[in-house]
C-alpha cells in the first residue's frame, strides 16, 4: 500500500484515542461550564446560563479567590525553593566521582513515590505525638514544640510546601545536573585561569550558560505546582478550613462533594488560562532549533 495512505492509518488509532479521551472531555467540560450543571438534578446539565458561572466565581465567591491566592503563593514558594535547593544540590554533585553516580540513582527513587503517598508520609511525620519531623522541629525551634502543625493554617501550608519541595527536588536536581554537565568545561577552566574565583566563575560563566535549562525547570515545576492535588488531598484535605485549598482541590470539592459540576468546570477553565502561557513558553523550548 502506498505510503500516503499508510501514514494516516498508522496515526489513526492514536489520534482516535487522544480525541476520545482528551479532546472530547475538554470540549464537553467547556460546554458544562456554561450550564447549571447540578449532579443531583437531571436535566440541569443542559440548562444554559451563559457566563454566570464565571462571573459568580470571579465577582461573588471569596472561596474562589482564596484558592487562587493559595495556589499562587504555593506555586511561587515551591518553585522558588525547589529550584534554589535543586541548583545547590546539583552544583554539589556535578564534580563527579563515585559518590555522584550512587546519589543519582538514589535520586530517582522519590519519583517512584506517588504524590498521594508523599502526602500520607508527611502527615505521619508531622503528627504531634509521634511524628519524626514534628519532634525534630520541636527541638530545633522550641516555640513549635507543642504545636499541632496541621491544625494551624500557616504551619499546615508550610508542611504542604515542604512535602512538595521534598518530592520534587530529586527530579529537578537530576535535570540540572544534566544541564550543568553540558556546559563546556573549558569555559569554566578559562575563567579560572583568567583569574576568577569560585563564586565569580559561577556568576559570570556557569549561570548564564545554564539559563535555558533553568528556564525549562522553572516552567515545568510551575505547571506541576499549579496542578497539585493528590498530595494536598492526602496531607490536609484542603484544611484547616480552606488554608491549603488549591484550585484543583477547590474544583474537586465543588464538583464532587457539592455536585456543582457546571460551576466547577468554569473554575477549571479559568485555571487553564495561566496554563496556556506556560505551555506556550515550554513549547518554545521543546521546538527550538538546535
Amino acid at each position: 500500500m502506498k505510503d500516503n495512505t499508510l501514514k494516516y492509518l498508522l496515526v489513526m488509532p492514536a489520534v482516535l484515542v487522544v480525541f476520545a479521551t482528551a479532546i472530547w472531555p475538554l470540549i464537553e467540560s467547556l460546554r458544562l461550564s456554561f450550564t447549571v450543571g447540578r449532579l443531583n438534578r437531571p436535566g440541569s446539565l443542559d440548562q444554559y446560563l451563559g457566563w454566570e458561572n464565571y462571573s459568580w466565581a470571579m465577582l461573588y465567591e471569596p472561596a474562589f479567590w482564596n484558592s487562587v491566592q493559595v495556589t499562587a503563593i504555593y506555586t511561587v514558594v515551591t518553585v522558588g525553593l525547589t529550584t534554589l535547593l535543586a541548583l545547590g544540590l546539583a552544583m554539589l554533585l556535578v564534580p563527579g566521582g563515585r559518590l555522584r553516580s550512587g546519589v543519582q540513582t538514589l535520586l530517582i527513587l522519590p519519583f517512584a513515590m506517588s504524590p498521594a503517598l508523599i502526602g500520607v508520609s508527611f502527615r505521619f511525620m508531622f503528627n504531634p505525638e509521634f511524628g519524626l519531623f514534628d519532634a525534630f522541629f520541636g527541638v530545633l525551634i522550641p516555640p513549635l514544640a507543642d504545636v499541632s502543625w496541621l491544625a494551624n493554617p500557616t504551619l499546615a501550608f508550610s508542611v504542604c510546601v515542604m512535602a512538595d519541595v521534598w518530592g520534587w527536588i530529586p527530579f529537578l536536581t537530576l535535570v540540572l545536573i544534566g544541564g550543568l554537565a553540558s556546559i563546556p568545561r573549558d569555559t569554566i577552566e578559562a575563567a579560572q585561569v583568567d583569574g576568577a574565583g569560585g563564586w565569580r566563575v559561577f556568576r559570570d560563566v556557569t549561570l548564564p550558560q545554564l539559563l535555558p535549562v533553568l528556564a525549562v525547570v522553572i516552567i515545568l515545576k510551575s505547571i506541576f505546582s499549579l496542578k497539585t492535588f493528590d498530595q494536598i488531598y492526602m496531607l490536609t484535605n484542603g484544611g484547616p478550613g480552606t488554608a491549603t485549598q488549591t484550585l484543583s482541590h477547590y474544583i474537586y470539592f465543588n464538583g464532587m462533594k457539592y455536585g456543582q459540576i457546571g460551576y466547577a468546570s468554569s473554575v477549571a477553565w479559568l485555571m487553564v488560562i495561566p496554563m496556556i502561557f506556560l505551555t506556550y513558553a515550554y513549547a518554545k523550548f521543546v521546538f527550538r532549533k538546535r
Partner: protein
Amino acid sequence: MAEVRLNNITKRWDDFVAVDNQSLDIRDREFLVLLGPSGCGKTTTMRMIAGLEEPTDGEVWIGDNMVNDDLPKDRDVAMVFQNYGLYPHMSVFDNIAYPLKVRGTPKAETDARVKRAAEQVELTAFLDRKPRALSGGQRQRVALARAIVRTPKVFLMDEPLSNLDAKLRVSMRAELKHLSRELKITTIYVTHDQIEAMSLADRVAVMRDGVIQQLGTPDDIYNDPANMFVAGFIGSPAMNLIEGSIKDGQFVTADSTPLVAVGSRDRANVVLGIRADDIEIGDPGKGDLDVEIYSFENMGENTLLTAQLGQQRVIARGERHLRKEQGEVVSIWVNAAHTYLFDNETGIRIRGDDDA
C-alpha cells in the same frame, strides 16, 4: 624572572601514569613546545603548570615561587584552549576584557588594553559580536587576544591550531610566531603536529607515554635524534627506518642486501635511519642498489617514490620533474653522511664512537 621549572613531576590516576617522574627547565622568554602523539602526557604536563591538575608528586616552580598549592588564578598564567573556551554569552570585547575585569582593572585602562589586543590579532571590527557569529579562525584569535591582554608570566597554549583547516593553520602559525617574538613572554605550547613544533619552537620536548624522549632545539631534534621514536616522529615524510645488521663495516638489510657503509663494529639487530631527502634516485644499474617501485606520487613541489627493499619499503624524495611508473626498476644511492643507527631493541641511537 618567569622561568618555569618542573622537578620530578608525576601524574597518576589509579593505575595509569600520565606523566612519569619528569623534570624540565624552561628558560625565561623561551618558546618551548611539548610535542608528542595523543596520550603522551603533554597536555597533562601543561595543565599541571596551569594549576588545572594537581601533580601526584613533584614540584612546579614559576619564577621564584613553588606554585603547587596555588590556584590557577593566582599563578599569573594565561592559557589558550584547544576549543578556545570562549564565553558564549559575552561579546568579543567582554571576552577579551574578562581577565582584566576580574582583577578590578579600571575601565579606561581595560578599554585601552582590549583595543590594543584586538588590534594585534586584527579583530577590531568584531568587538561587538558574539562567539557564535565568528568563524573558527576568528574565535581562535579572540582566545589569543584574551591571553595577551594581560602580561602574564607564562603563556600556555593547548593545541590552539588543531581545530583550524589546513590553510588557515599555516597562516595562523606565522601570526603566532610573529606575535610571540613581539611579546617576549615565556610560552609553553602543546601540539602533536611536528611541523608546528619545528617552526615555532626555541626548544622542543618530545614526549611519549609520559616520558620526555629528547629535549633540544628543532635542529637537534631533526638532525640528531636521540632514539628511534624521535627520529620517526619528526620530519615529513617520516624517516626511513630499515631493519638489518652491521657486518664488515656495511649495513646489511634483513634480507641480507648490503646497503651503505657505516663506521661501526659488527652488530646484530640494528635499525638504519635515513631521510627521504638523503636517498638519490637514478637509472637502473647506476647507483648502490636496484629496487622496484611500489608506488610513485607526484606532490607538485616534489615527487615521492616508495620502493620495495626486500620485505621492507623505503621512501625517497625526487625532484619535481621526475616521472616514474609503478613496477619500474630504479637504482638508489644512500647518502652515507646522513645515516643514523639505532639499537632495534632499546630504540636508542648508536653513536659512531661507541665502539666499546
